[in-house]
């Protein structure tokens, strides 16, 4: 295994994060902090508790998950799209690195960035609203699993995209709405029965529910179902990446 190659890609991507701290860290942290201030502190103080959890604390897992999903996709898609756009991908293709090693470098870096961001946001949220984490190991497990899964999805998008517009379409037009409608700000138990059923087709519901359970021990769906759905999504993304590497789709002619 070309460990130096994996390390080179990983450090290169992490260096990009350091160069763009405002965009990579400060911007999502600021926007999420604003959500906490507005929905958590200002509006939240006038709302009733949900499942025994104050509204400000209730939205913390959903907010972190929202940022985690969008940033994982954004980091990974940008990471692989930029070399394709600038033409520097030639160097990756001509190097003695396998596809698995390329994936470990790019997805590993994207997931690391997202996890760091999640940790920073958790600390930021703690400054705005009081909350507890009942199952910290599960919380970390969900954080890592989600970051890796959505970084894989971002990697696929970065290869599929043939322009900056396409690069933005999936995060903006699909992931963000699914996250908002996936219970970031509410429990799906609060919806009418029909919409509760519809919500169960939203994969993000399971991510947020599982993540919220690790905080407060309350969930919209059971933990095994949340874990199973997240793992299924991970497997689907891995299958997509495998197909891309096997066929050389948009990578090699």
């Amino acid at each position: 295994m070309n460990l130096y190659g994996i390390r080179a890609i990983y450090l290169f991507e992490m260096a990009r994060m350091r160069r763009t701290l405002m965009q990579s860290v400060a911007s999502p942290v600021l926007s999420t902090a604003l959500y906490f201030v507005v929905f958590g502190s200002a509006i939240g103080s006038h709302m009733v508790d949900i499942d025994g959890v104050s509204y400000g604390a209730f939205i913390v897992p959903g907010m972190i998950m929202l940022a985690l999903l969008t940033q994982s996709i954004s980091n990974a898609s940008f990471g692989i799209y930029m070399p394709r756009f600038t033409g520097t991908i030639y160097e990756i293709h001509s190097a003695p690195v396998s596809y698995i090693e390329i994936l470990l470098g790019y997805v590993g870096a994207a997931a690391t960035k997202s996890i760091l961001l999640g940790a920073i946001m958790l600390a930021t949220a703690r400054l705005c609203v009081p909350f507890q984490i009942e199952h910290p190991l599960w919380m970390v497990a969900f954080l890592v699993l989600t970051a890796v899964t959505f970084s894989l999805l971002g990697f696929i998008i970065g290869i599929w995209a043939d322009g900056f517009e396409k690069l933005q379409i999936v995060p903006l037009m699909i992931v963000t709405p699914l996250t908002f409608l996936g219970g970031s700000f509410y429990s799906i138990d609060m919806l009418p029965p029909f919409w509760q059923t519809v919500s169960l087709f939203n994969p993000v519901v399971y991510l947020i529910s599982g993540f919220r359970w690790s905080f407060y021990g309350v969930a919209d769906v059971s933990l095994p179902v949340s874990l199973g759905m997240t793992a299924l999504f991970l497997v689907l993304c891995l299958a997509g990446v495998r197909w891309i590497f096997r066929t050389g789709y948009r990578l090699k002619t």
Partner: protein
Amino acid sequence: MQPAIAIHGLSKTYASGLTALRNVNLEIRRGEIFALLGPNGAGKTTLISIVCGIVNPSAGRVLADGHDIVADYRAARARIGLVPQELSTDAFESVWSTVTFSRGLFGKPANPAYIEKVLRDLSLWDKKDSRIMALSGGMKRRVMIAKALSHEPQILFLDEPTAGVDVELRRGMWDMVRRLRESGVTIILTTHYIEEAQEMADRIGVIRQGEIILVEEKDTLMAKLGKRQLTLTLGEPLARIPQALQDYRLELSADGSQLVYTYDNQEHGGDIARLLQRLGEAGIEFKDLSSSESSLEEIFVSLVHPS
């Protein structure tokens, strides 16, 4: 001795249906400078891209230093450095970090002393902390070369290395290529500047419409296909070439003041003395004479455009 690169029956047809290479067979000797010449679209870049792992072959086999580029791609690629035609760089990276990145990518442990040597050799040391976007085109080209050399390759592909580079820098690059060859690196270059191939190459390959139509030692090629011309400036203009000289390949200039005699390099000019004697016998005096040799460029044009 095992060749540096051995290409057997290599073909490439793109998904669009375009056939870029047709049954190419070629061996590059270890330690030589091989110039691959061909018009635009002839298949030069496709050939290089396949050897370097950027494009998949449709058929055929390539060995780099005895290692199959598909089955044993790690060993093959570790031996190859590539300077692509396009100036593809990470604009926001510093020179040092991008060259260090390349070395790691090719599986080599960090070696700051070697990277420093490469940058100094390419006159880039002063710019090591500069962002690539701040460099001139010529410097970016040198950064590309530094990246290709960062993992100490034994085989170096230079795809149009001096395109858009000024004369001084071009000559500097030629010197660098010669130094690399002296250190044992095999160099394969494609170029539009035939002068470049004439100046540096040991052997020349010509590719046309995806087929290698000629591989020859440069000097042999020049001797075999080159032409020489002897131009005589006459004392008095002639109206036409005299009958006594009709068996020579002579041309008379429009104003009748110059006679041009064209002969093959292989004829060694053996007939010139007799021609001059015949001119004297015909009473034709000349006041000046000069000779010239056809360039590789003219040979190249005659090969790729036979008509």
